[in-house]
């Protein structure tokens, strides 16, 4: 977690109360934020529904795209509880980096991870069959837990709804696929978790389908 001088809070600290908007999708943005305390949710309005993209907590950064690119905000950020952030204008970025090189390093880490996550998601979305997409979501979730042993049974703390969101499909459709996998004894379905019997099976299927995509 990033250790920034308390003196920064005096100059850059801002507090938000629960349910307050920090910034809004499509608003021009010139600042980026470090969360010191509390949680925020990142949402987008899609088809007139508020969809949660992510939840961030202390040590996380958001709004970082504004540092380098002149683009409107790509999502809305809303305080979940009492939130305390450090807010930096892009014009201060150089000075800030010079004074806090760890921050620069932290940003690199964040970008690296986000790029990978997005690419990984794209790989799932590009698969054609819903059943294979669902398998690949489970593989991805397993990959995120680096301590997992892929040889044995593994437990993923996820739900049909989350799987659907990753796979870009309706919840009912994801539920159907998961139910099928459970029926053929590939997974056990629980309310708050999914136990995968043998993730290697899924990897084989997905790898072969992915190869066929371009051939």
């Amino acid at each position: 977690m990033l250790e920034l001088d308390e003196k920064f809070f005096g100059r850059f600290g801002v507090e938000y109360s629960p349910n307050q908007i920090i910034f809004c999708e499509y608003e021009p943005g010139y600042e980026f934020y470090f969360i010191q305390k509390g949680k925020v949710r990142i949402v987008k309005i899609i088809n007139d529904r508020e969809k949660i993209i992510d939840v961030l907590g202390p040590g996380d950064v958001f709004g970082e795209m504004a540092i380098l690119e002149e683009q409107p905000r790509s999502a809305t950020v809303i305080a979940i509880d009492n939130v305390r952030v450090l807010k930096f204008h892009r014009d201060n970025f150089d000075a800030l980096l010079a004074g806090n090189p760890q921050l620069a390093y932290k940003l690199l880490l964040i970008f690296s991870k986000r790029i990978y996550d997005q690419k990984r998601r794209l790989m799932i979305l590009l698969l054609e069959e819903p059943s294979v997409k669902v398998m690949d979501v489970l593989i991805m979730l397993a990959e995120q837990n680096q301590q997992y042993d892929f040889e044995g049974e593994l437990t993923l703390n996820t739900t049909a709804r989350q799987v659907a969101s990753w796979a870009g499909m309706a919840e009912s459709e994801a539920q159907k696929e998961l139910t099928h996998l459970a029926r053929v004894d590939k997974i056990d379905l629980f309310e708050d978790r999914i136990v995968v019997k043998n993730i290697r099976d899924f990897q084989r299927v997905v790898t072969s389908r992915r190869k066929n995509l371009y051939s």
Partner: protein
Amino acid sequence: MTNGIQGGIRPRSYKAGSIIYFEGDKSEYVYILKTGRVLLTYIKIDTGEEVKEEVRQGEFFGVKSALGKYPREETAQTIGETVVLVLSLGDFERMILRNVNVVRKMLRVFSNQLRRIGKTVRTVLGESENVNPDLELFRIGEHYFKAGDFNKATYAFKKYLEYYPGTEYARIAMERIKTISSGGPAPSGGGGSDDLGDFSMESDSDDMFTFDEAPAPKAQTAPKPAASNKSEPAIASEFSSEMDDFLSDDNSIDDFGDFDLDSEASSAPSGLKGRFDEGESLFKRQNFPGALEIFQGILDGGEPAKEGDGKYFVDSHYYAGVCYYEMKKFKESMNLFAEIIKNRSDSEKYKGAVFYAGQIFEAAGQKDKAITYYNKVLNITPNDSLNGMAMDKIKALQRGR
């Protein structure tokens, strides 16, 4: 880039054609090409094509996967005798801490990549890229306004005013903020009334229900809403004052979907379908006065008792409204569409009625209201040809400002 490369960082020599790492390898080392050549080969995930990129001398490679602790996405192979510097993450961090410009450059590259991937993801998901940030910002305000989440709506509208003052929407945004700050359109606290769905809600809902219970919908004038709720300044145009009254009441329209049409039965004219078909046939031949006479006759008969006739009764409002519109009798036209918009939101003519309301305001020179209604059309499912027409209208009105 050589300053800062010191300390425990080891150079490593490779023969021509050596693999530094394979795609899929996991490792926490970062490399800098010192002398020689390195080729990175990877498969583009969206097209499956193989891409080769050469690293330039002094450049980093293997950074993202090392930092993100994920498998290598590319294979790195040398061409000719090559020397690279191998950095552990610790080395890399120490070096970075002394070279803020390098970080800045990397961040720029990363952030570009992130945008590009995000764009591809949205395309694959079928989310449109073709948007105006200003319109979208306004629509976010509308979303929260409709949802009764007034703090968020106010934030979005205020931002809209800050960045896009002087637009047609800015006026609407201003109205919304005033409405909210004067206690909000719905019972306070937001979301108090489930019926207050769409769009504007500047009046109080009791009025709406009183209006509903009135027996004959023909040529109604809406009762005035409580003055305190009116935020709309009077507009001086020929017939705008009545329209305004209508609108400020109408502003709490929509989504009275639960309202039971069939229970309001009164006297039933016989042979309703036959007469309706006759009217429709005249209408199709663009004999609007003739069609109007028939539709008006159906309306004068009041709500039909026979269950299946309800549709003809509602549709007669619509066609009579279109007839009046074609005859440029906008006030009469608006009253009929208002009946559908307010009380018959479950009708399949509902969306058409909203669109015509937009056209009437456009004809009356009230661009902001026209835009409001066209915008509303966009929010009514299903997505059909009216959406395209409404979008074209909005664009034309915005250009024509």
